[in-house]
């Protein structure tokens, strides 16, 4: 099977779907001639033409609003928002329109838009190129929110998303576009070739939406996480010498509660990790749900390791980022509970 990094996997997903379905169109800032600032759409305009890979004005609200109208008219638009931090100007169109259209018209109208946006920090992007706003979208019924952690899932989930008739926010953790990352910025970068999920089929396949994945099984502790931190969590558990079960949530919403609770009921301990700030973050939903369903098996309080409740500071991104040290400390303190 070919090796792909996450960018290539995403591009391959777009290519495969555009090839099969002429109704799929891409629009976004710099996505066309240039191929996107992260190169995810590179070559697609040359292949599919200017009417299917459309350079757009710098207007996130307009991009999403127009995409909704296109979707209503039978297309499957895949808008790209250049950075997740810049999705907010389109927030009203997402929450009030995209998420609500099917409901308010009882299915008479719907718009199958998949919004792609690179998220997360660790690339020295400062506070406006590093955010992970998944919690905000998780709270909005009517949209689904996805975040893959590797090339294989990225392609499979993106194909599922575009083929789905539901609107989807597809967050791509840009720190791991080019390789997995164990949380230590001092170490040399690793390529996806070193990871089993760097092997990605050329053609069409799907990874189902709404299913978490146990990426490492273990007996002592469950670590529930997603995105970049999946890799950090594995490294931290290893370093801490704890037999941890690591679960990649993948689908923020709808959430695969069963996979999580089955694991925590087994291990009796749970640590949740995400990059976004903790207060009101998605980890809160995970903790609230897990404590409810696993109460009688919990041997320690569920703990959350997350970004601090600050903006993502440029120079201190590694102090903000819930990296290996903080994860290990978290693991240790949860394992110390008798």
């Amino acid at each position: 099977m070919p090796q792909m990094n996450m960018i290539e996997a995403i591009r391959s997903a777009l290519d495969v779907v555009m090839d099969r379905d002429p109704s799929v169109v891409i629009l976004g800032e710099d996505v066309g001639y240039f191929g996107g600032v992260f190169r995810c759409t590179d070559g697609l305009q040359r292949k599919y033409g200017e009417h299917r890979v459309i350079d757009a004005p710098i207007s996130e609200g307009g991009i999403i609003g127009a995409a909704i109208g296109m979707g209503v008219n039978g297309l499957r638009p895949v808008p790209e928002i250049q950075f997740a931090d810049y999705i907010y100007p389109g927030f009203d169109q997402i929450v009030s329109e995209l998420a609500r259209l099917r409901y308010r018209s009882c299915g008479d109208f719907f718009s199958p838009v998949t919004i792609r946006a690179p998220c997360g920090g660790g690339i020295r992007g400062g506070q406006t190129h590093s955010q992970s706003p998944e919690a905000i979208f998780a709270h909005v019924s009517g949209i689904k929110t996805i975040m893959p952690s590797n090339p294989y899932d990225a392609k499979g989930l993106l194909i599922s998303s575009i083929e789905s008739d539901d609107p989807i926010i597809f967050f791509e953790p840009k720190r791991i576009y080019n390789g997995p990352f164990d949380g230590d910025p001092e170490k040399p970068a690793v390529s996806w070739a070193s990871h089993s999920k760097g092997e990605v089929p050329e053609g069409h396949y799907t990874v189902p939406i709404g299913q978490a994945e146990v990426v490492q099984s273990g007996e002592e502790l469950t670590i529930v996480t997603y995105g970049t931190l999946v890799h950090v969590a594995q490294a931290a558990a290893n370093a801490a010498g704890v037999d941890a079960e690591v679960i990649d949530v993948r689908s923020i919403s709808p959430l695969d509660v069963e996979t999580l609770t089955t694991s925590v009921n087994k291990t009796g301990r749970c640590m949740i990790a995400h990059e976004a700030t903790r207060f009101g973050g998605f980890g809160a939903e995970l903790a609230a749900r897990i404590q409810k369903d696993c109460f009688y098996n919990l041997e320690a309080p569920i703990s959350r390791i997350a970004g601090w409740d600050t903006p993502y500071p440029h120079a201190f991104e590694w102090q903000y980022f819930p990296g290996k040290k903080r994860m290990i400390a978290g693991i240790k303190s949860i394992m110390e509970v008798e």
Partner: protein
Amino acid sequence: MAKKSRLHIPRPSARPGDKPDFSYLNLSAAGAVDRPPIDSRTRDIEYLSSDLVRVLNDDHTAKGPWDPNIDPGELQVALRWMLLSRVFDKRMWQIQRQGRISFYIEALGEEAVSVGQAMALRPGDMCFPSYRNQGLYMYRGVKLVDMMCQCLSNTGDMCKGRQLPIMYHSNKANVFSISGNLGTQYPHAVGWAMASAIKGEDHIAASWVGDGATAEADFHHAITFAAIYQAPVILNIVNNQWAISTFQGFAGGERRPFAARGLGLGIPGIRVDGNDLLAIYATTQWAADRARRGGGPTMIELVTYRGGAHSTSDDPSKYRPKDEWAAFPLGDPIERLKQHLITEGHWSDEKHEELEEELTAEVLAAWKEAQQYGTMTEGPFLDPATMFDDIYAETPAHLESQRRRMIEVEGS
């Protein structure tokens, strides 16, 4: 703080107790404005955005180059639709006042907008309305009883009880679902039109916003996208002078007509008498032709007046003169078309009265029928368990389990 200040605060020309004053409206005489070819360059037809296209003259004849020469039979049909819209509104307003529906919005005084524009479009064209375009749904074949059931949230409700009254939708009739959020439909229309162009189809889109809603971001998004991609779309601004209590000056209408808003992007604008069905039809047809032949977007400002309250929750006597509508120089759209037909010998007061009676009966019959699907107090009732449907294409597990829990607890 110092006394000196230059913050300009727009003021309406009259407040409660004052004499209505519409001298601020720049009016043209019927027939006075040129009708340019549809392939004119925007810069050559700027006058269309400042003058006022009018066809129906004070003497009730049709005048000038914009006269669409519509067959009198068709005009009678148009009159019928306008009157139906008004009769329907009147009844529904009463019904709301009786507490039998929770809310209502009427289009009193603006009926020519929906009917005149609907007439000029083709069935395959897509409409993205505001909440004051009930005439569009009617004209395009949505049944009165279905609209009433929507307002009743009963078992016949197309919205299954999910939406406030008047938030209709009809995919079949090609009229979009109405949103509570102002202006959001504008970029949808542009995106829809872009898709039509991408697919190489012949359909165009049209959308409507109020004067007040032009201040929203989506107005800008829509005109920007429409201009850049030359989308086949008609962008209508229904300038009825008011946005709830706020005069249109607060939407920036003081210095230049709304029709001019797209000029800076090269979008031609037409300012049209919004109470003149003939002028509305003619300008819309012009814009539709232009769009269909690849000429891109046109903005149309329909100058009209909100004859009634903003909604059943509003009391306009608090902020504008009670008799302002009566003083509105463009009159009443129904009355004007009626007088035109009479003048041309195709109508009479008697026929009009008969028609009104007929429509009143039709509305009453629809209301009777609608109630059979349930009222707010009497069954049959919609099943609340349906509130978990249609959030997604397929209902996910967590919503199914919430549905079960709801039934359990609420005992539905």
